[in-house]
């Protein structure tokens, strides 16, 4: 079990969790903290050469 192998699956679940939180009107600060964790994990996995192609690009909510 390495982060490079399992990180993409973990990242996908974190992104699913964020969508769930958004859908149920969770406090914004919870989603914001999770969003930062997602960004950091994504950067880390990219640096380690993990394949994130299956996840696709991140969507950023606009103003």
């Amino acid at each position: 079990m390495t982060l490079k192998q399992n990180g993409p699956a973990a990242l996908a679940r974190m992104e699913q969790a964020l969508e769930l939180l958004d859908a149920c009107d969770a406090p914004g600060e919870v989603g914001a903290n999770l969003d930062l964790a997602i960004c950091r994990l994504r950067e880390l996995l990219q640096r380690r050469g993990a394949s994130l192609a299956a996840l696709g690009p991140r969507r950023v909510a606009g103003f």
Partner: protein
Amino acid sequence: MSKSGSGPEAPSQSRFYWLSDEDVGAAARLLTLLARGEGSDVPAGQPLVAPTLEERARHALALRQRRIALLGDMFSTEAPFAMLLALYVGRTRATPHTVTELNEATCLPASTALRWLGPLVSGGWVTRTRGSDARRAELRLTKKAGKALDDLLGALP
């Protein structure tokens, strides 16, 4: 140190002795008091002795605790506080901040800064209005946030 043959002789070892931390602290306080007097080059209130790294760490921790007490639990996380600080630093400038500028100033990902804007606006810390260019939001610190940061930063030595 003295040159041989001229000037005062170096003191003998017996004239040296160790000072306790309390002695050093008392000397620092005394020098600080003296510095407040007339004829000193040191500004009033500024300590003559630089704080130790441990003292700085203690101060940073105290500042964090004060920040959470003053601003609330939401600011136990660094990101929203960094966003407030960035707006506070530029509060006197003529043009309001954009989200992109906040990202650059705080080193936060765009998605995170955008998400934090929601709680910051709903909490009354930041106002967000559409600018002349409808795609760009204009961000400003509220009076409530300015006052809170004044109080927080005013506690710094």
